[in-house]
């Protein structure tokens, strides 16, 4: 009896929490599908006269395709390169006895680097990119995100690689593999879940970043989605419909990504946060 009631209470409480967590998403989607007159016509929980207008304005008037293209290119390149660099470094740190206590100190450095607040780096990065003529370019952002992600990838991947017994790759090397082909053929497949978790966290962090992209870009040549979203706000008259649509488009890639990798998603975020 009491068990049943406590179960009912448990699910009610969960439902309330889920409602709080998810209602803002729904409200944004709702607003993005409303006509201006309905947006200002009092709170309605679904669009009474749904329209795609806000979305077509977003892409036709506000160049959202350009922001999406920039974001996707920047995320793909910087995540891929940092995964390669970071994994190689982590492999070296876990498999070799390095001099100068590098095995440990490199990890500490990677952690400290991750802790430096972005706002502190932005000013020097701005001046540096200006000197190299890389302000407002995709390449500039790719270079910076690659570097910032690398410290994180090293930190994550060394903990995964350390768990994989060396005997396995040494067996492969007896069979004629070199150290690097053994890494590619034998070790990486075993570390795939860890690699996936690392990639998930890195993709989200890169796609969502705002401060760096805001400070180092100025036109649709290189501005990313979060910057594009922010350009719709702060005007004298806010256009709520396109702004809501921009929010939906901005959130969508990550939500789709979350659905695609659902199994690894929670794990990736957890490890990313803890390690």
């Amino acid at each position, binding site marked *: 009896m009491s068990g049943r009631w406590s179960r009912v209470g*448990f699910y009610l409480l969960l439902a309330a929490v889920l409602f709080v967590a998810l209602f803002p998403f729904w409200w944004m989607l709702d607003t993005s599908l409303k006509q201006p007159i309905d947006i200002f016509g009092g709170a309605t929980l679904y669009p009474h006269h749904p329209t795609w207008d806000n979305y077509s304005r977003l892409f036709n008037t506000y160049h959202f395709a350009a922001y999406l293209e920039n974001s996707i290119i920047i995320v793909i390149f910087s995540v891929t390169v940092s995964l390669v660099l*970071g994994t190689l470094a982590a492999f070296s740190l876990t498999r070799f006895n*390095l001099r100068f206590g590098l095995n440990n100190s490199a990890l500490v450095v990677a952690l400290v680097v991750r802790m430096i607040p972005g706002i502190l780096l932005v000013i020097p990065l701005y001046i*540096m990119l200006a000197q190299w003529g890389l302000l407002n370019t995709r390449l500039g952002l790719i270079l910076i995100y690659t570097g910032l992600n690398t410290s994180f990838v090293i930190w994550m991947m060394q903990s995964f690689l350390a768990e994989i017994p060396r005997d396995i790759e040494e067996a492969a090397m007896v069979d004629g593999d070199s150290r690097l082909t053994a890494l590619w053929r034998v070790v990486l497949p075993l570390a795939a879940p860890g690699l996936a978790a690392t990639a998930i966290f890195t993709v989200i962090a890169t796609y969502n970043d705002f401060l760096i992209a805001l400070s180092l870009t100025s036109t649709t040549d290189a501005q990313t989605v979060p910057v594009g979203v922010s350009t719709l706000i702060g005007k004298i008259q806010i256009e709520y419909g396109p702004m809501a649509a921009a929010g939906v488009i901005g959130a969508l890639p990550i939500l789709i990504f979350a659905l695609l990798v659902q199994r690894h998603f929670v794990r990736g*975020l957890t490890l990313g946060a803890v390690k």
Partner: protein
Amino acid sequence: MTQVSAPTKRARARRGRIPGGPYLLLLPAAVAMAGVSIYPLFYGVRASITHYLYGREFGRNGLTNYRNVFHDQFFWEAMRTTAEYVICAVTIETLLGLGLALLVSREFRFGGPIRVGLILPMTIAPVVVGVMWRLLYDSGIGVTDTIWGWFGAAPPNVLAHNTSAFIAVVVVDVWEWTPLIFLILLAGLQSLPQEPLEAARVDGAGRVRLFFDHTLPMLTPVLLVAITLRTIDAIGTFDQIYVLTQGGPGTSTRLISIYAYNTAFLDSQYGQAAAMLLSLLAMVTILMVAAVRMLRKSAA
């Protein structure tokens, strides 16, 4: 890290020789990291002792920037706002995150999808979070008008008043980042050893006693990690504020990151901004070290 003794390790390393040695594997990553974080950090230190006029360098000026920062009442005001913001947000997030983690730590039906739903707020861009809450808060289009209306109150226009705007941005932070603390504590709870809990349960300890005498002490290290991470991140909060209030009304939500950003990019006072942020970094580091020491002592 590894328990292999040195000679065998060296022998193994010899067998799998990579031309140029393992250092070569480390090099690209080291260059990438140094290029975007370590070098800029030094550059920032240099900028903090440089005099800038209209965005151009005009030689070194020693500690003048730091002196200016310390005599700047707006700096201290922003520091105070940041401290209040961080303390309010992180405290609430910790309590809610802990409660939530305890609530769903055991397996139950639909547990997987429900957990994903609970953490969705922390996965989307903070800028988008800002947009979402703009749509909820703004007068005339949001839901706050409606909710206040139920109680017969006038439309509040939440973001236009000092106190309510401050509360509003704290609420947004809590909504977005409670999931992070929840996630870390959930992982912590699920990896706790079950034997001591079972033993205490057999001895007849009630749920509350069980929590305070056993679960909480075992969970403390994870809890500290979560609080530390969240505190560091919260101090740097920028995106949502930029979208929601831009630091206003007045200076009521102007956190240190917003103030530093304005100093650097609106006023072109790079040196002053760098001095400001390095002072902040120093203070936060001292505070963190002190906090960790204190907690270690009280735990011992």
